[in-house]
């Protein structure tokens, strides 16, 4: 992230994104009115792809930060580095986005520690400013700047919840798995398989999603279906392709994997 110039964050080619409902209109309106955006949804449902598409549509650079336990405030804001006996200030991704009016997308925000997330508070309300403590500087965000967060409400534990004070600054969009028709269309496009093949994969995904009450943490995501489709397209037998892309990644529980394998062999 650091060291990359802001120009490199522009997205030049239109990413594939199949609009499902009002999400794009709402996100564009949010940008226009400088309100930050919160994307909720299960894994692999297209949150990151949606952000890429939005950035392309808005012609703004997209700076993505994948959040994790050890992400510190300086990882976001920036830090002094020592080069050749001198200290050099280096902007963090958040500062970079604010300076250039880009879109800063904090992926899986709940993974970050709560004290880290607090740094975005002044940016996320009507102040729209980023204090850089170490430099004694306060950056004001230009109107083009947009802050977006994503998280997966499905598997967050109680420890990993968003604070209400954070939540209540955002417009929230829920991106769930698309309807079967749209999902098949996406798989068909992304994996390059026939519509019939895509329909079958979507049916399999629906079957696995029914197991969510029975011990499976999450059903197969659209992303997994695309992987499966891609392998099938490249000539790997469908049963094997689905096994390695769907049943095995979904669970380590022997019975669950076996049950999903049985579904695969019933379909193919």
């Amino acid at each position, binding site marked *: 992230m650091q060291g990359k110039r802001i120009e490199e964050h522009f997205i030049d080619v239109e990413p594939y994104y199949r609009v499902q409902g009002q999400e794009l209109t709402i996100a564009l309106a949010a940008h226009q009115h400088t309100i930050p955006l919160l994307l909720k949804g299960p894994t692999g449902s297209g949150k990151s792809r949606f952000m890429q598409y939005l950035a392309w549509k808005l012609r703004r650079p997209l700076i993505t930060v994948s959040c994790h336990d050890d992400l510190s405030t300086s990882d976001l804001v920036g830090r*002094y580095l020592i080069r050749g006996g001198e200290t050099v200030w280096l902007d963090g991704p958040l500062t970079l986005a604010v300076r250039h009016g880009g879109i800063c997308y904090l992926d899986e925000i709940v993974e970050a520690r709560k004290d880290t997330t607090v740094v975005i508070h002044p940016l996320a309300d009507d102040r729209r400013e980023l204090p850089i403590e170490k430099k004694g500087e306060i950056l004001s965000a230009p109107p083009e700047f947009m802050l977006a967060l994503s998280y997966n409400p499905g598997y967050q534990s109680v420890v990993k919840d968003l604070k209400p004070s954070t939540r209540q600054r955002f417009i929230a969009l829920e991106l769930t798995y698309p309807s079967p028709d749209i999902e098949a269309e996406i798989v068909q496009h992304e994996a390059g398989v026939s519509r019939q093949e895509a329909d079958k994969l979507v049916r399999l995904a629906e079957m696995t999603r029914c197991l969510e009450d029975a011990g499976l943490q999450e059903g197969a995501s659209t992303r997994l279906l695309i992987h499966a489709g891609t392998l099938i397209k490249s000539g790997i037998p469908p049963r094997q392709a689905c096994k390695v892309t769907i049943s095995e990644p979904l669970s380590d529980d022997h019975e669950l994997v076996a049950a999903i394998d049985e579904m695969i*062999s*019933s379909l193919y």
Partner: protein
Amino acid sequence: MPSSAEQTILARVTAIIPESELNSWEQEELVECLAPLSGHQQELILHQIAVIWPVSHSLCLAFLEAAEPALACLDPEQFAAWVRAILHCYEAQGLQEARRFMADLESHFICTLKGQSGLLLSTIKKRLDLYLRGVAGRPFVLAEATLPGTDTATIFLPRNCTFFDEDDANFLVYKLIASLQWAFVRVNLYCQEVPNEQELFRKMTQPGSGPKDEAVFLNRFFKLFARPDRAMAIYHFLQTFSALCFLQKKLPGLMADSTVYFQSVAAEGAATMEPQSLLAGEYGFLLEQLSHNRPLELPPGPWRRLCHPASWDDSGQILLDTARIYALWEEKPDQEVASPPWFQGTLQVEAAHARRLARRQEVEQQFIEALAIRILPALARKKEAALAPGATPADTPQQADSAADLSLRLPTPQNEPEETGPDHNQVVRHIRLDDEKIGLDSKLQELGREIMDDLGHLPQLYLDSAEKMAAGRSYAPHIQTAGPEGEPLLGTSLYDEWDFRRQGFRHNWCRLLEKEIQPCGGTFIATALKEQRGVIKQLKRQFEQMRSHHRFVGRQRDGDDIDLDALTEAVADQRAGLPPSERLFVRQLRDQRDIAALFLVDISSSTEGWVGKAIKEALLVMAEAMESLGDRYAIYGFSGMRRTRSEVFRVKEMDEPYTETVQGRIAALSPKEYTRMGPPIRHFSKMLATVEARVRLLIILTDGKPEDYDDYKGEYAIEDTRHALVETKNSGIHPFCITLDTKAPEYISHLFGAANYLVIDDVKKLPRRLPDMYRLLTS
């Protein structure tokens, strides 16, 4: 006068079974059975008597009769396994089944030993259940029966499958018949209700009308015909065809895999079916297509001419087609109907009807209850408004009356101009309470939908019942079902129990009820907090120091701040002409306490006195201290009586905030019944296993040995508890025990392991020792 050999046997028997439990008649019978056996055989049987006798006396006597022939063909190890199997059978299905099990040693036990029992349903049940849940999108209950079938909620499958030699192939058979039963449900096998029955029956070529007294529609239909069995066979054939077509479309892989199976069924059918019998050719035709995985078609000739599978979605059509084929068969009055292939299963018309009625009742109940809760606030508001002090005295009675007469109505075209009345396919989104529109949530909408699908309309009666229920409750806000002691019931679960004598589990042996304690007021909390003020203050300080702390590590390549020492060195190195280090940063690390603890408190009657005060104080002090520590914790009490009523009482859930309600529940803890430790330990191990934490602790506070009213005492109770604790440890949870039983050292390390317990000799020390122990345990 018994012989001396008999005397010896009698002595051995009475050593195992207390004489008080054995009448002379039983004594004689035991001795009689044992006497003719060799010494070695007697030894083996006596050993098992010790296992079976405590479970059931009648079973033990029945066992004695069956034991000798069994010993002839089983070695000692197999004999013990056989006894375990008998006990499972007895505990699951009762004495009759156990007798049958013992009588047929060959088919029930020996073939399993030899691996000839094929694939047992019990071995693959879980996998099949998950598979079916995914495929069907809803859970089905899987149950054993001789023939496959379904009542739309349960799918019946045979106990074992011996069709092939390999397990995989047999599993495929299970998968196929289970999928087929699901397909039957999907193609509406039981033809639940035909909208216009009269008209349909009129359209039939057969004159006359069905018997009026027949409650189930399909039976009414079959009885229209002179030979109902024929109509039923035709109908089932058509439905099987329909279900198989459905499977071919939905699960092509399954049908492709099953060709081998269909080939053998076809071959078998060709060998056994009377070729002249009705339907024999038709089934043959069907199997032929299935064996080659060709798209299914109806048999050529009249079937294709007379039946219209394309319009079977309308269930009337398949009935009309059945009638047409039946008419065709009138020319062949003497021919028998062939018995259908086994995989088709049976039609369970009555069971499906009963299931439907049960479901209707369930939905009705759920709908009424959910609706009652939904309208409760509105109703209360109206009543309050009617009784408001502002109302003039003259108005009040009238208004109160009208409040009682409030009526709950469905939206109709009259009172809802923008909407048409709810027709067959429409969801009821809101209802009207007098003039107020009340929206229904998704659950209610879903239930409403199901009712409309079933009955065609939403009966006003349901609304009236809901209103009545709400009116009755508006002043009693606790809506949960009360348990036998008045505590609201939160859930029940079943647990196995370890029987050390047989070295095996008694499956689903104990029923555990989870209940909520009603918090009580009073002065206890305030007094205790005041008395323990000093301890609490001190503990809080200690515990605060244990909180997660930050730590700086220097000389990192990258970090939050510059490490001045390292920087100075680097500059010096550079001046000296040495290559300076690049590790010039400090980074803040944080050690997090990621601990979840569950305090399980024995509130059996023997704790009277100490539960009374010390334990409650200890819990209170502990909770206060825990709040400053920030670890996640839960508090539960346990007690119970007999295996069917092991109870746990919720004081504080894992992530429930520590509030006055929780304090109130601590104060409300009171001595209950006995100490059956196994079920609560298993219950909370299961619960803790789902909690995400680095360290998970199960802290048990007790005053003595595990003991229950029934035979859960002594070695049995200790061994079960020990086994439950071993299970707990295996699932990555640390159990720890605090006991007030000064005799505990005799057995407690056997239970918990050497360093995992603490004996407190004075109750009064508990409030102080409990947090201390926790601190040591977690730091």
